[in-house]
C-alpha cells in the first residue's frame, strides 16, 4: 500500500533546478531511505513532502505529491494541515529553548492553543518520550530546559515532539549527522521500533545507516532518482552502474 506517491516533481532554488522530474512511491509503515552524494537534492525532496521547501525565499515547486489520495500541492490544500499529518525531525536538534522539556514535547498542541486535560498531556508526554526511547533519561527532569540535555538527548526529544501530534508520516533529515555513535545507535533503534506506528522517510549521508535501518532505498544523483528498490537489493545487487559506484565508494 502506497502512502505517498510523487508525480513529475520539479523544484528550484531561484533559477537553479534542484529536483528533476521525480517519480516515486513510498510504502506505508515502512522505512524508506534517501541516499546520494551532497547536493543531490535529497533534503529538498524531503522538504517537499511537508511543503517546507517553498518557504525558502526564491524556492519553487511544480508537480504533484499524493498523500493517501490527495495531492498536497492542490490549490485548496492548506500547507499547515499537511504538516500536521507529516512530522519532521531535522539535522540538528531544534527544541524551543524558552520552553521546558515537557512543554516542548506537547508543543504541537500548546502552540496551537489546543486545550488538553492535565492527564491527557501527561499521557502524551510519557507515550511520546517512550516511543523516542528517552523517557527513562528525562522523566525526572521534565520541567528542566532543553539546554540541560546532551545533543543526542535533545534530538530524541525532537523525535518525541514530532510523534506527539501522531503524524502519519515522519520525515527525518540526517537525524544523526550531528551526533556521536552511541546516540546514533539509540536513535536507529528508535527508528526501527517506530515502524509499527508511522511511515518513515529518512535522508542519510551514511550508507551503513541506510542499510541498517531501511526497508526501501532511493538513490539520488544530481537532482534525479537513479534507482529505487528494496534496501537489500540496492546494496547487494544494484541495477545501475552509478548506484554501484556510489555504494562501493567510488565517489560520494
Amino acid at each position, binding site marked *: 500500500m502506497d502512502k505517498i506517491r510523487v508525480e513529475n516533481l520539479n523544484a528550484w532554488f531561484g533559477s537553479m533546478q534542484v529536483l528533476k522530474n521525480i517519480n516515486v512511491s513510498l510504502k506505508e509503515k515502512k522505512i524508506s531511505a534517501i541516499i546520494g552524494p551532497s547536493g543531490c537534492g535529497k533534503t529538498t525532496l524531503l522538504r517537499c513532502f511537508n511543503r517546507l521547501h517553498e518557504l525558502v525565499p526564491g524556492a519553487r515547486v511544480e508537480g504533484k505529491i499524493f498523500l493517501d489520495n490527495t495531492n498536497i500541492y492542490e490549490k485548496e490544500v492548506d500547507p499547515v494541515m499537511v504538516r500536521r499529518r507529516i512530522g519532521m525531525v531535522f539535522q540538528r536538534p*531544534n527544541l*524551543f529553548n524558552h520552553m521546558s522539556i515537557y512543554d516542548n514535547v506537547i508543543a504541537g498542541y500548546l502552540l496551537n492553543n489546543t486545550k488538553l486535560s492535565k492527564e491527557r498531556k501527561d499521557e502524551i508526554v510519557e507515550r511520546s518520550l517512550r516511543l523516542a526511547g528517552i523517557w527513562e533519561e528525562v522523566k525526572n527532569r521534565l520541567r528542566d530546559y532543553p539546554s540541560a540535555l546532551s545533543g543526542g538527548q535533545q534530538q530524541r526529544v525532537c523525535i518525541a515532539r514530532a510523534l506527539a501530534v501522531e503524524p502519519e508520516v515522519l520525515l527525518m533529515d540526517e537525524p544523526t549527522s550531528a551526533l556521536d555513535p552511541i546516540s546514533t545507535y539509540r536513535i536507529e533503534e528508535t527508528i526501527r521500533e517506530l515502524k509499527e506506528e508511522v511511515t518513515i522517510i529518512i535522508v542519510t549521508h551514511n550508507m551503513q545507516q541506510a542499510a541498517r535501518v531501511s526497508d526501501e532505498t532511493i538513490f539520488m544523483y544530481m537532482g534525479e532518482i537513479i534507482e529505487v528498490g528494496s534496501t537489500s537489493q540496492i546494496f547487494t545487487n544494484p541495477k545501475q552502474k552509478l548506484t554501484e559506484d556510489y555504494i562501493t565508494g567510488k565517489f560520494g
Partner: protein
Amino acid sequence: MSYKKRKIVNKLMLTISVFTFLIGAFFLFWILGDVFLKGARYINWRMFIEVPKPPGVPGGGIGNALVGTFILTILASIIGVPIGIMVGVYVNEYGRGKLAWWTKFLTEVLTSFPTIIIGVFVYIILVVPMKSFSALAGGIALGIIMLPIIAKSADEAIKMVPISLREAAYALGIPKWKTILRVVIPSASGGIITGIMIGIARVMGETAPLLFTSLNNVYWSVSLTKPIGSLTVTIFNYATSPYDDWRNMAYASAFILVLLVLFLNIIARLYAGKRRK
C-alpha cells in the same frame, strides 16, 4: 616585519586605544561627579512628595515632575513598544523586497532625526488643534522618538532567532502568525526587552520635544489633556533661573534623572549579558 617591530606596534596601538577610552570615560565621570557633588546634598525625602515653591521659599520639590516623567514615559511606551516590535516583525517575517528595505531605511533615518523637529511636528498636528499643551502630546512625541529605537533592536533580536526554530514550529503544523507570536518573539525577548529599556532611558532624558508638547506644570497633574511637568523641563527651567535655591534644585533633579537613566541602562546591559549566556 620583525618580531620586535610587531611587539612595538602592538604596544603602541594598545596605548592609543587605552588613551581614547580614557578620554571618553573622563568626560562621563566628570559629568557624573559634577552632578553628584553638586546635586546629592540637596536631595531629601520632601523633594519627592512636594511641588515647586517660589524662589526664596524654603522646601519645595519635584514630586509633580517625577509623576509627569512617569506618565509621559508610559504614554510613549504604549505607542513605541507595540509598534516598534511590529516593525521588527514585519521587516523580518513578512517584508520582502522594496517596502521592507524602505521601512528599515526610514527607521534608521528616524533614529537620528532631530527630536526638536518631532516636537514641532506634534505641536502642529496636536497642540494647535487642541489649543493646549498636553501630556498626551508629550507622550506621542516621546513615542515617536522611542519607536525606531525599539524597532531596530527588535529587528536585530528577531534576526538572531535561527530559521531552524521557525521550521521546527512550521513542521508541527503551527501557522506562521502563531509561530511568530509564540516562538519567534519569546526567543527574541532578551534583545527586545533590552531595546525597550534603552528606549525608555532615552526618552526620559528628552527635553526639546517636551517644550513644544507637554510644556510644564508646577502643580500636581495626572490629566492627559493638560500640560504636565517633567524632570527634564524642570531641570531646564531651574538651571536657567537666576535663583540659587532653584539652581541647586536643578542639580538635585539632574542627579535623580541621571541615576534613573543609569539604572535602566545597567539593568538592560545585565539582562542582555545574562541572555547571551
